[in-house]
């Protein structure tokens, strides 16, 4: 096939696609009770068509011989930068990164800290889900339920019984782990898609219960005026006494979540490179083979659910403390989809990838605030496009084979 005919087919495909798009768009925008209007359809179609023509034009141009030289130059520059980076030892980078993160609230305003807190919460969630989906290969579509369990645990214990945040944190983690084991147990015999729908159903069950159990959770109104975490300081005023200080400022909350997120990163990394992590990866790659080699798949799958849920529960307890209120609509399916998208976008099983994924999905939309209403539209489209162009994620994990279930 010559270059010319290939391009001709590309342009023809574009024309057919745009025609089809116009056909689909017209009934939604062109038919009104007043009659038929073509103006609005055209207004939407025009920018889309221009963008499509631009992209296809660029693709055509990049196949020209002249573009090859440019690409080679860019490749050699990237390789040079990579060697320069790898010469510096890793601990230097980690120290620099931690110092940067610690200094961050002093460098930016309140809004910047707010976004960073959000990102860090989602880093915890993404890493927790990564244990289930990325390491153990169990698709979980109801992960946000554990976040909800953690959030409501702290909200109820703190407002009804006045329990401190630091005591609630492990309680939330344990309760979430129990919830994880509860969903894990009946689903252990299922594989693949059945698992997906059962976890989705479980997530909905938790949300509906939270929504309707008025006496415990206050239903759709949620729980308000949740106290922030506090700690005791020693005060010297004519003798020594202890004073209880509440962390009311956002900056202080940032450090709490930073510790939580860094702790999660370290924990997940240790899990990943331990005996448990290897067992999980063996189950992910081929469950039958893993079982034959002596891996107790039942116990490790249950453990994966419980561990993943634990991190979700911790993040949830922090979320409740930070927002000072919780309501059931924070734990809908779309949140589960968002966390899953983060994990897959970043790269299944890859810790730096997931951190990057959380940054991309939480911080990037903040940059494009003016286009708020198109946010989810673009998010959905980007998810599909990402699967087309880079299914392994932004930073793929080092140890990742071909998934076992595909041959089945």
């Amino acid at each position: 096939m010559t270059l010319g005919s290939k391009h001709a087919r590309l342009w023809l495909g574009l024309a057919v696609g745009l025609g089809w798009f116009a056909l689909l768009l017209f009934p939604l925008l062109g038919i009104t009770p007043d009659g038929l209007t073509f103006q609005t359809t055209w207004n939407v179609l025009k920018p889309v068509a221009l963008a499509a023509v631009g992209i296809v034009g660029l693709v055509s141009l990049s196949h020209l011989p002249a573009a090859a030289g440019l690409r080679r130059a860019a490749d050699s520059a990237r390789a040079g930068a990579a060697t320069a980076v790898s010469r510096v030892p890793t601990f230097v980078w980690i120290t620099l990164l931690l110092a940067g993160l610690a200094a961050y609230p002093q460098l930016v305003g309140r809004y910047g800290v707010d976004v960073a807190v959000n990102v860090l919460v989602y880093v915890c969630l993404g890493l927790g889900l990564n244990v289930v989906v990325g390491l153990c290969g169990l698709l979980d579509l109801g992960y946000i339920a554990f976040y909800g369990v953690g959030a409501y645990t702290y909200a109820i214990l703190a407002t009804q019984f006045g329990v401190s945040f630091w005591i609630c944190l492990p309680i939330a983690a344990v309760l979430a782990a129990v919830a994880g084991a509860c969903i894990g147990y009946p689903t252990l015999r299922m594989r693949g898609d059945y698992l997906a729908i059962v976890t989705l159903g479980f997530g909905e069950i938790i949300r509906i219960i939270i929504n309707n159990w008025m006496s415990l959770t206050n239903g759709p109104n949620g729980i308000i005026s949740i106290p922030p975490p506090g700690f005791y300081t020693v005060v010297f005023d004519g003798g020594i006494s202890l004073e209880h200080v509440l962390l009311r400022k956002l900056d202080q909350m940032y450090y709490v979540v930073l510790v939580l997120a860094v702790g999660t990163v370290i924990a997940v990394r240790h899990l990943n490179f331990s005996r448990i992590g290897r067992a999980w990866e063996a189950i992910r790659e081929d469950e039958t083979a893993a079982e034959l080699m002596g891996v107790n798949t039942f116990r490790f799958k249950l453990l994966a659910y419980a561990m993943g849920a634990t991190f979700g529960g911790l993040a949830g307890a922090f979320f409740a403390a930070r927002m000072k209120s919780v309501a059931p609509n924070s734990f809908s399916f779309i949140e589960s989809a968002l966390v899953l998208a983060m994990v897959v976008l970043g790269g299944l099983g890859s810790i730096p990838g997931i951190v990057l994924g959380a940054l991309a999905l939480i911080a990037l939309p903040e940059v494009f605030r003016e286009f708020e209403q198109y946010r989810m539209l673009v998010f959905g489209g980007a998810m599909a496009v990402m699967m087309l162009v880079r299914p392994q994620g932004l930073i793929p994990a080092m140890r990742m084979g071909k998934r076992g279930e595909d041959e089945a």
Partner: protein
Amino acid sequence: MDYFLQQFLNGLTLGGVYALVALGYTMVYGIIQLINFAHGEFFAAGGYMGVILLSFLASQGYMDSHPWLCLGVALCLSMAYCAMLAMAVEKVAYKPLRSSTRLSVLLSALGMSIFLQNGLMLTQGVYDKAYPTEFTHGSITLGPVTISLMQGLILGLTVTLLLTLNFVVFKTKLGKAMRATSMDKTMSALTGIDANRIISVTFAIGAALAAAAGILVGLYYGSVRYDMGFVPGIKAFSAAVLGGIGNLYGAMLGGFLIAMVEIMAAAYIPHGGEYKDVFAFIILIAVLYFRPTGIMGENVNDARV
């Protein structure tokens, strides 16, 4: 007893809707092993297309003279529309991923679902859109139960569509090709069946059924909303799984079963109305625990699409 019969009838009506949506899931799953998350959105798009066409026809004055004819036209057009939409989605988001991992395709489907739902919201607004329903009022009393005209319409149309589908799948050449493709893609391709075309047609048929269900639900409840596809979508998918995914009769049975559980729980259990979705999912989890392939999922090579 009368109360029970009345609730049973309500369950049948809702079950018909679930069965129509569940068929789309099960057909697509049977042929490419994909949970088509965007299927619930075809249901919503069908409902919207119905309200758009009906209110357009009403403003032109046709609704007063021939309401049933208008409904028929709207039904056919929105089914055709959703079939086109499904073919476009398949072409753009699923076909290029034919050889990649199942998780990739699933996420692509999830992305398409979010995309379509927000597309509907942006083009049609966030508020409920009201259906013109004046012509559907009225009811027939048969002994102890009262069948409203709307319920009769839903049941009649559902049975008609299910029978038509049954005929298409089991009696026509197209259906034979569909069954062959779902059993063995490579082998059926060797006999000259164009697998891509069959997959496209499967998506189109499933989406058309979902569109019909969308219009029926819109007429029954009197309004549509941009996110109306989500909950019926997961219920219908549960129904498909419950019946044994990939099995046509299983999807129909599962649809009626899930709806029956929901209606009966709302009718007989205190606070059941608030928790009816919970009961539906608990039944699903319980059935899958004891029978992981679903109720009728055993005959993998028989009656699959």
